[in-house]
């Protein structure tokens, strides 16, 4: 279909306007971070700072233990994604390849688990972790984040395994591979993009959590995650908006980078179940 030039121009205009309005809050966050503190307390607002204050990032890192917070977030994400991937690779493969008694109902239960409100689960987990002495330790949120990731990753991986033809394993087994060997040597290598996308999505889930960190880690300042740390920079009466914005940029950056590089895979995973 040849599009008429005027229609094309209109389309561009529409796209640019829509993106402009919808992405403005992100732009405003970055501009706020780079503005000098006193210019934020003037109206009308400046939509471009005269001199971008790049030093703000050094300033907040000197004032607050932001590298520590980011490090804790990374540790929590690595831990919870590691545990979740370990169990859900096997479970997803099993749900995809074997017809087990109870398999479908387990699958359905896992789906229902995705509906659990974190605010409901956080209460018993608080009790359990207190009993185990885990409150204040990163292990508490590693386990809690696994409750978010496992239901999701098991289904996403099952979806990926479903797209890999069974003939691959059959061929491997005819050649003398054991079923487990076929899984490890043939299917997992083929599924690597799917595994990576699932792991990254799990990373995003863990990185974005606030409820669990707020509940389990509030009294353990050295174990604060980035999200929890940021919220403490928001004061009751006075907030240094340029500082908190700069910190927020640092927290958002890893996820945005992941998104930009893996959008296709993430979208594939998000929509995997929905299209059938």
């Amino acid at each position, binding site marked *: 279909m040849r599009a008429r030039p005027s229609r094309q121009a209109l389309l561009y205009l529409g796209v640019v306007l829509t993106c402009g309005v919808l992405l403005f809050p*992100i732009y405003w966050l970055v501009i706020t971070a780079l503005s000098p503190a006193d210019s934020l307390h003037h109206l009308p607002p400046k939509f471009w700072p005269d001199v971008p204050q790049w030093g703000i990032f050094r300033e907040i890192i000197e004032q607050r233990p932001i590298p520590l917070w980011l490090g804790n977030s990374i540790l929590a994400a690595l831990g919870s994604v590691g545990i979740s991937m370990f169990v859900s690779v096997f479970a997803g493969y099993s749900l995809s390849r074997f017809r087990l008694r109870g398999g479908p109902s387990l699958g359905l239960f896992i789906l229902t688990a995705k509906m659990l409100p974190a605010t409901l689960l956080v209460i018993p987990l608080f009790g359990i972790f207190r009993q185990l002495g885990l409150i204040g330790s990163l292990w508490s949120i590693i386990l809690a984040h696994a409750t978010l990731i496992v239901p999701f990753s098991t289904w996403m991986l099952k979806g990926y395994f479903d797209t890999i033809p069974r003939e691959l394993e059959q061929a491997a087994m005819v050649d003398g591979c054991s079923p487990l060997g076929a899984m490890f040597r043939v299917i997992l290598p083929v599924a690597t993009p799917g595994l990576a996308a699932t792991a990254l999505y799990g990373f995003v889930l863990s990185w974005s959590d606030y409820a669990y960190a707020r509940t389990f880690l509030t009294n353990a300042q050295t174990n604060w995650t980035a999200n929890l740390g940021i919220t403490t920079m928001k004061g009751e009466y006075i907030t240094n908006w340029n500082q908190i914005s700069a910190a927020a940029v640092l927290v958002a950056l890893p996820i945005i980078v992941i998104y930009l590089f893996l959008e296709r895979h993430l979208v594939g995973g998000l929509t995997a*179940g929905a299209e059938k």
Partner: protein
Amino acid sequence: MNQHRTIAPSFTPRSAPARRTFGLDLARPSRRHWLGYLLLAPAVLLIALIIIYPLFVSVDMSFQNVGLVRLGAPRRPFTTINYERLITSPEFWMACWVTFKLIVVVTIACFVLGVGTGLLVNNKFRGRAIARLFVALPWAVPEIVAVVIFAWIFDSSFGLMNWFFIKLGLVNTTINWFSDPTAAFAAVAVTMVWKGYPFVSIMTLAGLQSIPEDFYNAARVDGANAWQRFINITLPCLMPVLGVTMVLTILWVFRDFSIIYVLTGGGPLRATQTLSIMTYEQAFSFFKMGYASAVGVVTLILCVIASRLMVGRSAESIY
């Protein structure tokens, strides 16, 4: 007999020698499904420990008059007092009403924006790959960061929104976004819509791509115009995807904690206190864990009912 039927037929090894090559002989069909269970075991164990058991504990707690949770402590006597208190508490019904309002407002706005942007960037133009990437970018912004952005935009003294409203002549004095109940609700809704619409556009785009081009060509041959093609092909083909998306969006609003909690804390005057926030507040501000569990259990039941009602029997096939 039955065992053989439970195994995927395509898994049956074709050649007898292949069976003999490994020690445990897992390839034999009768053993094969044990492998399936074995692979499932770690996940089942983990889910049992960190999801099912805590869920059981909270249901159990909702039937006891407990403050702080003590697992080792002897069980308090069974009581339904938490649920009775719940039903008679105006706070609970208020939270239900706030949750309902928020769901309606946020879901409708997310769909208008999400389906709109999805349709827009589905057009053919140069650079649409990048446009697609950017149109859904807020999806990648963590909720807490979105809260920081909008808390600043809605700041009552130097926020952009007040300046903008006054500039447009909509209001004369600055609005105190976080101390006026209606304004606070609006601020929460705007933040949630901004964070929630990209998911709808992502799903819409995926749905649009699964519609075969042939459908449109056939309609063109029959002389259907663009609007007719949209109504008769695009919309019906999108419906299943949009149905699931709607359920997921509603569930997200139902359960969301961080946006509301950090932005308004459920206030002012509980105007933004949803069931999720109420659960958390009761548990960790007032330490009424039994009562909070009851609220949480009711929330969960409402979630399940809502999603069942909307997707009905097709739920299983869609997932």
